[in-house]
């Protein structure tokens, strides 16, 4: 009984260690390589910050300019990505 419990506890520790190593490896490698980052020529546009409008987007490897926009920017609309467009 005691030996069985000790072996079970050792297994849990091993799983916890493997989990911690996996988390640190996956998180660090993802943060450095950033596999989901937009690449020039890829469909769409990079992620837009607040108040940023792209003048077009990539489609099938070509930059397609968006149609001219109405001048509806009235300034001081506050912060946040929904403030313009």
């Amino acid at each position, binding site marked *: 009984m005691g030996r069985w419990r000790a072996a079970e506890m050792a297994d849990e520790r091993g799983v916890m260690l493997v989990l911690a190593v996996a988390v640190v490896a996956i998180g660090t490698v993802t943060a450095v390589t950033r596999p989901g980052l937009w690449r020039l020529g890829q469909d769409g546009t990079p992620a837009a910050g607040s*108040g940023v409008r792209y003048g077009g987007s990539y489609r099938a490897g070509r930059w397609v300019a968006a149609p001219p926009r109405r001048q509806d920017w009235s300034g001081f609309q506050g912060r946040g990505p929904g403030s313009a467009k």
Partner: protein
Amino acid sequence: MGSSSLGGRRDPAVLLWPLASLLLPLLPLMVLLVSALEWPRRLVMVVPEGQRVLSAPFELQDGWLGSPRLALTAEIPPNSTIELDVALLDGNGRTVLTLTKDGWRASGTWAEEGESGTWEEDDAGLALAMRPGQSGRFQLAVQLQDLLDEAGQPLPNPVVVRGSVSNHSVDAPLLWFTALLTLALAQVLLLACYGVSRGRWVQRSQQASAAIRCEAGGPGLLRLVVVARWELPHDNPPLGQPPDPAALELRVSDAQGRIRLQHREMVAVAHRSNDGDHWLSVRHTLHLRLPERGSYRFRLQLPEEFRVDGDTWDIEWLQLSVEDGRMTAWPVSVLPLDGAVEGR
């Protein structure tokens, strides 16, 4: 046995390797530190209204060791708005990306509960994180469309736009998150290694002694923790100093009642007080190694009372806990058991 295969070199009850897990959260923080050492390329452009201004050429590298990051900030006066067109040009001067930044800067004064001050908020910058597809030289073309005051009237320009280009930026929030998550996992691991026991028995007594008989022994150490409290019979503050160390007596007997250990040591007595209450307390931990599993009785005794400078402190309660199969991170002093082979 699981403990000996996982354990330290000499003492199977000392587990060192889980402590190494505390180094894991340092890895993402080290990456963050190294990435902060990259000195970004600085760009400065003076942009008059209506005129397209080109930045100095800069290189964007494609690779997996971090990623390019372009940041631009327009220096605009307080209480103004700006519309800035930005284009990214490749080495042939071809436009590969265009965007417009609607920026603003606002300031004012605040007054609250007799205090006042000024506040300022702005959103006049942009950051572009992307990969160029293939490494090469690029340029930025910046054009000022509008620089208006609060009333919508044009403001005197030009505007200074400052930029920075780094090629090996990393995802800092993800690295911080990874470090925190790994730290939490490491703490769970430490708890699973040093905070668990095969069995735990607790006895609380109104006297200054307590005894527990239990089935214990095997891999790991047996930990005895005693906590005791003495109080004055009245509510008056104590007259004298805290008492000298007190005698603690431990007796361990086996299934046949034979005494296997008789131990006596002096333990420190602390004087504590809180909100007008005064008491004396002892908290002490002892470690034993019981190589053979069996029935053992642990009896622990402390003084029933202390007489110090006219004060008589009486025992209020004593709590004894026995935890079997404990692992430690550091070597601890272990009481030798009579008849048992004790390595330390």
